[in-house]
């Protein structure tokens, strides 16, 4: 972790203790801006090599190597690795692609599967000791994933419905009196072009951001309070217990958010393939 003085006081250590007389170092947004280890200058652009980019590279490698290894032998009687790989693939295919898009969702399973497992494993990095940083809490990651999803969505929509019909069918909803279109069409256009992708990115980002902040707060609290007194022992133990509970809860949220992001992607892709009524 980078040397950020959480209490903001020059004389205080990075994570002070109650006895040092420093105030409680409530973690803030600064804990998400990690110092880079090195800077690479490629073609006039600075690439920062830090914890975030290393975890991102590691996660993509883990996911890629796992699925390549699981798919390589392809025996009739599957081994352990192949069964897990097949289960993972079938989960995305049956629970997300076929459930939401239908039969023609099968060709999107590679995309949806990559999204789901990349997001899930990188979220899990938030609680895995050593890494303990959910990279989706850096806004750039959810935003770039959302851009991929959104470009796919727009391209498919315009290809299958025609560029004009794609926008008009979203802007002029059925079941609304024609007089209301003047007020509602701009709202729907804004929804389609701006708030839909923005909410998809922010939902993932904010969940990971808030979860990491909460866990950090209680972890720091457990250290800050610990002392040989009743308040110290009870306060520290409670804080530590809450950290454990929150970690479990956070793991649930991590899987859930990866699922929701992928589900929304499938919903959008399905919507672009089939015209609205």
């Amino acid at each position, binding site marked *: 972790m980078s040397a950020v003085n959480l209490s903001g006081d020059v004389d205080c250590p990075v994570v002070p203790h109650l006895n040092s007389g420093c105030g409680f170092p409530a973690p803030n947004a600064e804990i998400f801006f990690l110092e880079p280890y090195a800077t690479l200058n490629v073609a006039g652009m600075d690439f920062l090599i830090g914890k975030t980019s290393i975890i991102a590279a590691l996660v993509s490698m883990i996911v890629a190597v796992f699925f390549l290894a699981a798919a390589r032998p392809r025996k009739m009687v599957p081994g352990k690795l192949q069964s897990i790989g097949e289960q993972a693939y079938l989960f995305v295919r049956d629970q997300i692609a076929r459930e939401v898009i*239908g039969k023609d969702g099968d060709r999107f399973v590679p995309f949806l599967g990559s999204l789901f497992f990349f997001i899930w494993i990188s979220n899990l990095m938030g609680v895995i000791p050593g890494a303990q940083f959910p990279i989706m809490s850096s806004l750039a990651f959810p935003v770039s994933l959302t851009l991929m999803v959104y470009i796919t969505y727009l391209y498919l929509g315009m290809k299958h419905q025609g560029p004009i019909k794609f926008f008009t069918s979203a802007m002029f909803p059925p*079941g609304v009196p024609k007089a*209301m279109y003047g007020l509602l069409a701009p*709202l729907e256009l804004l*929804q389609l072009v701006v708030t839909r992708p923005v909410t998809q990115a922010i939902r993932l980002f904010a969940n990971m951001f808030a979860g990491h902040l909460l866990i950090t707060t209680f972890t720091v609290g457990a250290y800050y309070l610990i002392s040989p007194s009743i308040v110290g022992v009870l306060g520290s133990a409670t804080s530590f217990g809450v950290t454990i509970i929150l970690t479990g809860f956070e793991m649930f949220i991590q899987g859930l958010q990866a699922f929701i992001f992928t589900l929304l992607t499938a919903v959008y892709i399905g919507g672009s393939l089939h015209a609205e009524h």
Partner: protein
Amino acid sequence: MKANGANFPTPEDTRATADMAWRSVSNITAGLLLYGGIGWLLGRKFGHQDAFMAAGLIFGIVLALYLTYARVSAMDRNTTTSERRNDQQ
């Protein structure tokens, strides 16, 4: 919203329902941004900035909720007719 004999929801139904649920969030955000923004601009031009912006925000939410309501009722009508058709067969 196709009737497929049995009462299982088709992928199209699932997608439409899920889309509706998630869309309402983006719709309300869009309503707040758009009409709140228009209210803010009007307020800059005519004074009473806070009043115009508050009116715009409320108007935006009301419109977004109305839109959600209209879309859901349209969906509901489709489902009901297809179910009725099923019963008659």
